């Protein structure tokens, strides 16, 4: 019997090419009832919000360099352990700054057997993370929040 659930989490910009690591920017999706890692999940709907970016305008120049027109790519990995490369990646979804996506998958959706880690992409897809930052930003500015709706199948 399948149960419809929503799992939520967020990932923060990083870049393994610039001193960051996969661990910096990954998050494991947990079952909302048991707080255990989700497994055997049929992903049916993806909702995501990219917090990065600015509204109301920003002057560029005069020492101001806001992350304008940026986008980030959220990766979904099918793995029970923290991903170390792209071999477990199932999909990669670019999301514009200060915007959301709401995407429904066809049929019963996409099956994740082992578990779900989300991650923000690397160089060029890292949501505006600049290379002179030695650590991912600790604030909320470059987070991508993700809600996954789908069916949890009995173990």
């Amino acid at each position, binding site marked *: 019997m399948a149960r419809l659930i929503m799992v939520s989490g967020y990932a923060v910009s990083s870049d393994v090419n610039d001193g960051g690591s996969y661990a910096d920017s990954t998050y494991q999706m947990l079952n909302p009832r048991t707080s255990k890692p989700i497994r055997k999940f049929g992903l049916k709907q993806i909702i995501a919000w990219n917090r990065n*970016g*600015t*509204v*109301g*305008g*920003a*002057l*560029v*120049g005069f020492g101001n360099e*806001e992350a*304008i*027109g*940026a*986008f980030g*790519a959220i990766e979904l990995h*099918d793995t029970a352990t923290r991903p170390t490369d*792209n*071999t*477990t*990646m*199932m*999909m*990669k*979804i*670019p*999301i*514009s*700054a*200060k*915007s*959301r*996506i*709401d*995407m*429904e*998958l*066809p*049929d*019963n*959706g*996409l*099956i994740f057997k082992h578990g779900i880690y989300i991650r923000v*992409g*690397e*160089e*060029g*897809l890292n949501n505006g993370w600049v290379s002179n930052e030695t650590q991912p930003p600790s604030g909320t500015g470059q987070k991508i929040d993700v809600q996954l709706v789908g069916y949890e199948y009995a173990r």
Partner: protein
Amino acid sequence: MAKIRAAYGDWVSNEFGAGGKVIDPSAEVNDTGGSNARMTFAIPNRCRVRGVYLFNSEESEEEIRLIDANASNCPNYAAVQSLPRVYATVVPRDSAFSHRWTLAEVFDIDLKFDIYDTPSGVYNKFPKPGFLFENGVGVLYFGTDASPQIHWLIFYSE
């Protein structure tokens, strides 16, 4: 009910995958006919495409086509013209505002901002059974940028 799979890729990171497997970055038509056209073999086998999400962060809107092709029947760019163009659409650019004012030809002021809660890209979900690709799916771009900031996510069944 057919099992749904996903294929993803972009020409920014040059990472491609389909059905949970990484696709070699060289899975691409090498000869671009002297232009900056690019075509990557995003799905290497027969399939039915059920949905497409395309994202474009180039400076202008871009046309993207899905061609019924694989590395065998499409060895060069000239061959693309004779292959079925199963799907094509124009993808608007990423939503942001930018404008430059030049004051007295002395200095410039740039004003830029992201447009709030305005999803970029296009997502099309197709009726059953989806578009049939006999040989595989090639994602084709023939714009002006050698490394176009174009991304795709394709939902398909085999």
